[in-house]
């Protein structure tokens, strides 16, 4: 019965991730497809597009948040998230004191590293909350915020998956339920050197990709305003390729430099700071027997969480 519930739970959570990801994907690529597939529609409804997209991305974030947060966050998780978000925000302000190439943001590295150590769920929440807190503090709340939160959340989430993947690859699980993306990433005792280096390397790759993707996704918000569908695209011969080319041009002009700086910055941070941070966090986690509460566990059932026997 328990396993049955667990399995259906896992299925539903996998479904939520999938659908939410799909929503994000459609939001991202629709500007390229719509003019091609439904040209006469595009103009009339091109105006609502950004609204609709933002709303849908918003719902996507909402759904993921409800799923991951629900009511099953323990006080430890909440406190840790709060403090880590504070630390990352402070680091962000610190970096603005130094002349860094625009777009470089030191918040992605900690988000991904935290996601790697504490699991995808924690990473998603940390990504979302860090962006939200930053926006609140710097007065940057706007319709682009759902995109920012969404992307940062996914960056943290995938970093957590990376860890589960790593453990699954290295040691075939025996009796332990591996929950891709949702589990706490049970710490295996073997934290060998080679494994750490491999993980850091993969994290770097992820950092690079997400650095670029983040910019690309947030830019999609502005895209309809700068070069949105217009009658001119229906001149004969204009196809998907042309639209993509235009977006590519838009991207290059507005944000490629920014995003490259960010991506490279992520790689640098993870490369240089990643290993010590991971080590420190792992150690902390072991000291405090910290596990992010699993799905299906009710909040307040700290008995199970604390592993007590009476």
């Amino acid at each position: 019965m328990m396993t049955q519930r667990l399995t259906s739970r896992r299925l539903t959570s996998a479904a939520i991730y999938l659908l939410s990801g799909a929503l994000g994907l459609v939001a991202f690529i629709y500007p390229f497809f719509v003019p091609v597939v439904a040209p006469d529609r595009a103009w009339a409804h091109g105006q609502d597009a950004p609204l609709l997209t933002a709303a849908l991305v918003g719902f996507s974030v909402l759904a993921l948040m409800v799923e991951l947060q629900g009511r099953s966050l323990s006080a430890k998780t909440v406190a840790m998230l709060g403090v880590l978000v504070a630390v990352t925000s402070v680091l962000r302000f610190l970096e603005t004191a130094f002349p860094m190439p625009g777009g470089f943001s030191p918040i992605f590295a900690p988000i991904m590293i935290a996601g790697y150590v504490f699991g995808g769920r924690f990473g998603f929440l940390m990504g979302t909350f860090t962006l939200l807190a930053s926006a609140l503090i710097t007065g940057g709340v706007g319709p682009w915020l759902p995109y920012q939160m969404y992307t940062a959340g996914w960056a943290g989430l995938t970093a957590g998956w990376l860890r589960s993947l790593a453990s699954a690859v290295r040691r075939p699980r025996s009796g332990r339920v591996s929950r891709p993306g949702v589990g706490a990433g049970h710490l295996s005792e073997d934290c060998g050197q080679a494994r750490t280096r491999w993980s850091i390397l993969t994290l770097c790759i992820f950092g690079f990709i997400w650095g670029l993707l983040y910019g690309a996704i947030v830019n999609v918000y502005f895209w309809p305003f700068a070069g949105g569908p217009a009658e001119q695209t229906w001149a004969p011969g204009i196809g998907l390729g042309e639209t993509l080319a235009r977006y590519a041009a838009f991207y290059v002009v507005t944000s490629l430099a920014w995003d490259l700086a960010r991506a490279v910055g992520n790689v640098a941070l993870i490369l240089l700071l990643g290993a010590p941070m991971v080590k420190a966090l792992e150690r902390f986690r072991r000291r405090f027997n910290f596990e992010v509460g699993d799905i299906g566990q009710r909040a307040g059932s700290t008995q199970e969480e604390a592993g007590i026997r009476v």
Partner: protein
Amino acid sequence: MFDARVWLIWALTTLAAASSTRNPLYIIVLLLITTVVSATCPEGEGRRAPLSPLRFATFAVPLSTVFNALTVHFGDTALFRLPHWLPLMGGTITLEAMSFGAVNGLTLTVIFSAFSVFNQVTPVRDLIKLAPRAFHEGGVVLSIALTFIPQTARSLNRIRDAQAVRGHRVRGVRDWVPIVVPLLVSGLERAMGLAEAMVARGYGAVSNEAQPVRSAGVLVLGLLALLGGWLAYLFRPAWQTGAVGTMIVGAALVGVVVWLTGRGVRHTVYRARHWTLGDSLVLAGCAVTLSIALTQPTALQYSPYPRLELPPFAPFVGLGMLGLLVPAVVTMGHEATAPQPAKPTGQQAHLKADH
């Protein structure tokens, strides 16, 4: 002045209005409205965005103008011609394209300005309270983050000094390790202490929602509906109404799940703000504007192509947009009737306490 939710709705309505048209006259009206509101409504301990809307405009408008002009070669009023072999830019540069780009830039500015106002007038704490009850814990996370930021900043300085005192020089990025790691670890240790204090104060109520699986299932259905509806809306014009309907159903399902989750959270609010007449007025104004924006596509539609002409101006649309000006009107009305706005200063609170 007004409830944070009301401000959010106002900003979103401005967003909707701005996105609904490319008519420069209406856009300019909206821009003026947001500027007036920004000037009249007092800062409520909010933070000013580092970029003022004016400065934003100075780079957004030229950028989009130039970009559009260079990449779109359509329109009747040709200005000059670029050689054909240029990859994207080759072709006629038309006035229509330029003006379209300019209007786009202005629209972005309006959106930015509206949210600037939002950031300016809402204190951060109120924003956190905006979170629906289902996300109460998220609100706590943000609360903790904001409370810990000053402390963390002080910690950072202390750690920097401490490391300097054992001979550590910060030259490259690698040298940040002895500063970042203690910062992280002491922060986390503090977090454990904080968690204990929270638990000791009764945090972490066991909620009574018995079927987390069921609500997750509903969530899945809701997302499916949203996705399906959206795809249909985009790619199958014939099913438009059905598509919109599906999307609404999906949104409603997600909303229901959020609400149900919220119901499980046992929690009251200490400083509940009371709904005032001003809040209702602002909402009414937003409703008027929104109805115009959503139901009058023909009146709002304007395109510079193929030939640039003077844009039409329908007075009733303009009036409808004035609905967004209500916050400024109400604020000015308040100031006129109540010459001493009661802002509790520290001193007043002190006096009050002593009576």
